[in-house]
């Protein structure tokens, strides 16, 4: 659609600009400010240059957290996206059962994140939780506060439980937009179920799936509350993801300088990966169009 050029449109954008400027730019400036200064307390600051950045880049702690974070995001994307599509394909198309499924599936999305953590913390406990109790009865040693594998498994299953529905609902919305004639034509053309998926459903879902992947990547990369409630980042540092580490550093130890430098790099990494995602995907999309 061709848009008219109109510089007065800036006035319409102004409220957003002021508000987001207030709640994003000012805090971000504070962060930048901290990241280049050092203090001995009493609010006396002096210039530290890029030392904090160098420190953080050399710090094993941050690299480990980043590594864990990447592994975590990779695993949950690899599970949630295919599973979400699979669930969407199996959802009823209309009527009471469609609404029924939609309502139940949306439920986990609207639970406060710490409650999600609490739910799984309880659910996984060997003494009072259904999951932990059942696993223990089956003779599987399971303790998410002590065991590395159990902690990771719990955090991943929790995230799958929490967010797969979002992917499924987006994919479902994409599927709903496919006109019947496509399915009928496929039948006439004797396309197999796989080909219907590959050539009709997947291309029509591509747009929303891209949104789903981006959203899931960003949110999983910023995950804080749920693992913090369940494992507190442990055992050891096994589930200390970037946000958990950052909060520990900034609010726990009040290491303002390193935390600020960490923050900025963290933000940049998310922006960078999102941008790469977005560019690669839109490019793929365009190349297909040719």
């Amino acid at each position: 659609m061709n848009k008219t050029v109109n510089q007065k449109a800036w006035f319409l954008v102004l409220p957003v600009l002021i508000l987001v400027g207030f709640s994003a730019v000012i805090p971000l400036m504070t962060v930048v400010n901290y990241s280049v200064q050092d203090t001995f307390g009493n609010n006396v600051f002096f210039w530290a240059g890029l030392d904090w950045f160098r420190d953080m880049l050399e710090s094993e702690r941050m690299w480990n957290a980043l590594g864990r974070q990447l592994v975590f995001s990779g695993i949950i994307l690899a599970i949630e996206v295919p599973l979400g599509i699979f669930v969407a394909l199996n959802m009823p198309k209309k009527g009471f059962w469609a609404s029924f499924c939609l309502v139940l599936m949306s439920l986990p999305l609207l639970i406060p994140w710490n409650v999600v953590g609490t739910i799984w913390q309880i659910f996984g406990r060997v003494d009072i939780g259904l999951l932990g109790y059942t696993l223990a009865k089956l003779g599987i040693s399971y303790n998410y506060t002590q065991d590395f594998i159990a902690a990771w498994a719990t955090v991943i299953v929790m995230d799958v439980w929490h967010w797969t529905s979002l992917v499924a609902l987006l994919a479902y919305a994409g599927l709903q937009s496919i006109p019947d004639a496509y399915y009928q034509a496929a039948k006439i053309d004797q396309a197999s179920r796989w080909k219907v998926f590959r050539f009709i459903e997947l291309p029509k879902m591509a747009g929303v799936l891209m949104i789903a992947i981006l959203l899931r990547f960003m949110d999983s990369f910023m995950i804080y509350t749920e693992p913090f409630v369940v494992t507190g980042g442990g055992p050891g540092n096994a589930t200390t993801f970037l946000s958990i580490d950052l909060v520990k550093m900034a609010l726990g130890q009040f290491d303002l300088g390193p935390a600020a430098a960490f923050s900025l790099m963290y933000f940049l990494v998310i922006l960078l990966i999102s941008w790469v995602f977005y560019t690669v995907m839109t490019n793929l999309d365009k190349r297909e169009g040719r």
Partner: protein
Amino acid sequence: MTDATTSAPGAASIPGDVSAAEPRAQSRRRFRPSGSVVVMTLYLVFLMLPIYWLINMSLKTNTEILGAFSLWPRDLTFANYVKILTDPSWYMGYVNSIIYVTLNTVISIAVALPAAYAFSRYSFMGDKHLFFWLLTNRMAPPAVFALPFFQLYSSVGLFDTHIAVALAHTLFNVPLAVWILEGFMRGVPREIDETAYLDGYSFPKFFVKIFMPLVASGVGVAAFFCFMFSWVELLLSRTLTSVDAKPIAATMTRTVSASGLDWGVLAAAGVLTIVPGALVIWFVRNYIAKGFALGRV
């Protein structure tokens, strides 16, 4: 625009065509593997089990929770709920949460509406950069902003107020609202604007009287998402409050560390935090599918 024609819903565009509605169900059904019901049942059971367990626990006494393992409450009690609903330090948490969530939703939508209109209708200097910059704020980790927010709102005397949390949450909700609304507004033909101006409507009158009803579903969807993300967020709301505006979610975390053992009350509080979300979903259940497409399909 060619895609718009192809995605027009087939025969349904012939008004009153008897064949429009039903064959869809039939033809689709034959494409579904018969295992669909099994898949959906398994998935929903997976989703519901942990929630069921929480409800189950909230209806038990602490002795029962810790004493005997049972799949349903043997000794049904509502004492946990009674405690929450009669103790101000508990139920004020809900009131606080609802106040700042509502404030946030109203503010986000109010500022996002004109901006989304501008992005969907006009091109102006720096529009694309501005739009992208807005979206990057949705990508900002709340953890990064926790400390600066704390200092910012403390310095202007807004610490521990509802408005502080509401404003902090606009950080990620306003970009989202702008983005969703822009998608919906793009779907409204520009001819409508032009006709209205020709008919002598002023911009504000046109916007409120004609345009808003047309994008009502978009406003609903955006409000739903603002509600959702503000309601579920904890890190910022906990950092920015201490007593007067403390959200229910934070109240819960404190109780865990303090008493630690009162599982029944904790579970009941958890169940009660699910209720507002469930209510909202129930009201929008017929629009969920469309809503999650965010106007982008």
